[in-house]
């Protein structure tokens, strides 16, 4: 048991996968040429007026349903005022005292993590600091691209209910899977679609009070999240042990040095002077809007995992991987559905191949499972179940099948590797081998462990030679057992 307890609350910023921005029709596209998706509204040009994107509201309502959030009758947008060139308007349109959703929870491994609120706001532009080292404090100037300014974000704020770095990671994984399932975001952390700030404090286990917290920014991967929380909680605990005070401040995670670095002190803490956005009218989600969302809600990850575990007899970790990797569960479902009923192959077999070979192939190539043909995997599983090829051979066949989009049966035929599994044919060969070596069976039965092993190996070798190495070892073993040991 560790000497201290870590208390964590997370703010997850999720870019919503709308076609257009939150308050204007500029395309919401990642990776376009700089400043090509900008207009009078998102550049804050005089006289321009924002109009709220209906889809952003619908997505927020979808998340509300998925995260057990309440939707108050009315919500309003506010201006968060600050001077920084990532927003050309000198304010960010956000929600403050009347957010669109409040008071929800997400269950992580049987524990409920409270969600304080999820509110809509617009994303900021991207600044690139130019100068020595590319860091802000030695930058000479900055270059700004406003393509991202005005992209709809949902900021999901958790309660300080998380107690370890690992649990924080699990929370983000579950949240990510949920956001993906309800179709509101592509949740790509590497493209900034999901960005995390972590509020971290430490205390003596069992203490009813929270310690002073630091907010860690710039967590752009699950790995950073884990490392940053571990570093920060150790740092804070060392401070308190040394009798020093933890300062309430923003700290930045520096991936290279593996440390959090103080951002600004409390004295400079921001005063955003929020006030209601006069250019946008309140949002009052109607019963009809909420019903429409509810009717189109998909199965949520927790229910989906439970279904696979129950119906397919697979483990929890298998189910988690299927659900967490985009498109993988759909691929597996189609492969299972394509299994011939009499093949002897099971859904569990399918999942094993999906988790090992198919997942490795996806990771290696960066392809989406949606472009692969699950029927081909189903055929492979059936070939293994029928004993036509061994598992070892199936690995090579699957690799070729995935790479060249070729049916496994065709590959097996081309390579001439089909095993002989026909019991009658194998029994004939065994009988011939036994007839040609009349003493071996007797010696096997009379022999000790070592002798048995030797004789068995000899018989297997003879049978395999007759079958040109393509005999199904399992079938041979079974029939040999009957003929030699059984009597």
């Amino acid at each position: 048991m560790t000497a201290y307890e870590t208390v964590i609350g997370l703010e997850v910023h999720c870019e919503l996968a709308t076609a257009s921005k939150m308050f204007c029709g500029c395309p919401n596209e990642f990776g376009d040429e700089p400043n090509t998706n900008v207009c009078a509204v998102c550049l804050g040009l005089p006289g321009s007026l924002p109009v709220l994107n209906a889809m952003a509201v619908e997505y927020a309502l979808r998340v509300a349903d998925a995260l057990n959030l309440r939707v108050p009758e009315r919500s309003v947008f506010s201006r968060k005022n600050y001077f920084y060139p990532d927003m050309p308007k000198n304010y960010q349109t956000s929600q403050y005292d009347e957010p669109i959703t409040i008071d929800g929870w997400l269950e992580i491994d049987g524990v409920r993590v409270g969600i304080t609120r999820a509110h809509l706001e617009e994303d900021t532009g991207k600044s690139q600091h130019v100068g020595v080292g590319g860091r802000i404090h030695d930058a000479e100037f900055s270059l700004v691209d406003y393509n991202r300014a005005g992209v709809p974000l949902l900021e999901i704020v958790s309660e300080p209910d998380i107690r370890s770095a690992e649990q924080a990671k699990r929370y983000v994984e579950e949240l990510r899977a949920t956001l993906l399932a309800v179709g509101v975001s592509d949740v790509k952390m590497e493209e900034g679609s999901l960005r995390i700030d972590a509020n971290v404090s430490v205390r003596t286990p069992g203490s009813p009070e929270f310690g002073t917290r630091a907010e860690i920014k710039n967590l752009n991967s699950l790995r950073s999240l884990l490392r940053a929380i571990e570093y920060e909680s150790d740092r804070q605990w060392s401070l308190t042990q040394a009798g020093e005070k933890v300062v309430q401040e923003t700290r930045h995670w520096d991936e290279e040095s593996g440390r959090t670095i103080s951002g600004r002190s409390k004295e400079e803490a921001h005063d955003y002077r929020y006030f209601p956005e006069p250019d946008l009218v309140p949002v009052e989600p109607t019963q009809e809007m909420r019903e429409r969302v509810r009717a189109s809600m998909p199965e949520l990850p927790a229910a989906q995992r439970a279904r696979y575990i129950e119906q397919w007899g697979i483990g929890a970790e298998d189910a988690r991987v299927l659900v967490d990797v985009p498109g993988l569960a759909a691929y597996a479902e189609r492969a299972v559905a394509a299994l011939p009923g009499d093949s002897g192959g099971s859904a569990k077999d399918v999942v094993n191949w999906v988790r090992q070979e198919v997942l490795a192939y996806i990771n290696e190539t960066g392809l989406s499972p949606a472009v692969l043909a699950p029927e081909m995997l189903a055929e492979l599983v059936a070939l293994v179940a029928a004993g036509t090829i061994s598992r070892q051979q199936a690995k090579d066949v699957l690799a070729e099948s995935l790479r060249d989009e070729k049916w496994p049966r065709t590959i097996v035929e081309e390579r001439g590797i089909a095993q002989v599994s026909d019991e009658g044919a194998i029994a004939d060969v065994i009988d011939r081998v036994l007839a040609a070596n009349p003493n071996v069976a007797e010696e096997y039965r009379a022999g000790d462990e070592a002798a048995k092993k030797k004789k068995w190996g000899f018989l297997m070798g003879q049978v395999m030679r007759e079958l040109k190495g393509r005999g199904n070892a399992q079938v041979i073993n079974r029939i040999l057992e009957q003929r030699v040991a059984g009597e």
Partner: protein
Amino acid sequence: MAERITRADVEHVAQLARLALSEEEIVSLSEELGAILDYAAQVSALDTHDVPPTAHPLPLVNVFRPDEARPGLPRDEVLAAAPSVQDKRFRVPRILGEEP
């Protein structure tokens, strides 16, 4: 009567708004802002017990637009309006302090 606007209040707000005020301006603005607050404070004489807080004077809610993308402005025109441009981006002075 509202609380007095102090010199520190004015300096704080000026700092937030990135305004460099002269000594005279700080003095005169303290008085002017105080007068404005006093004026607004007249509202507190009214009984607003049954009046719901309002964020907006218009009797409108749920003004939406459909989620349809249309091309942005031509980049050259956009950047032509900026005081300084580099690599197709807006070039801005060195930023002091941290990101918000």
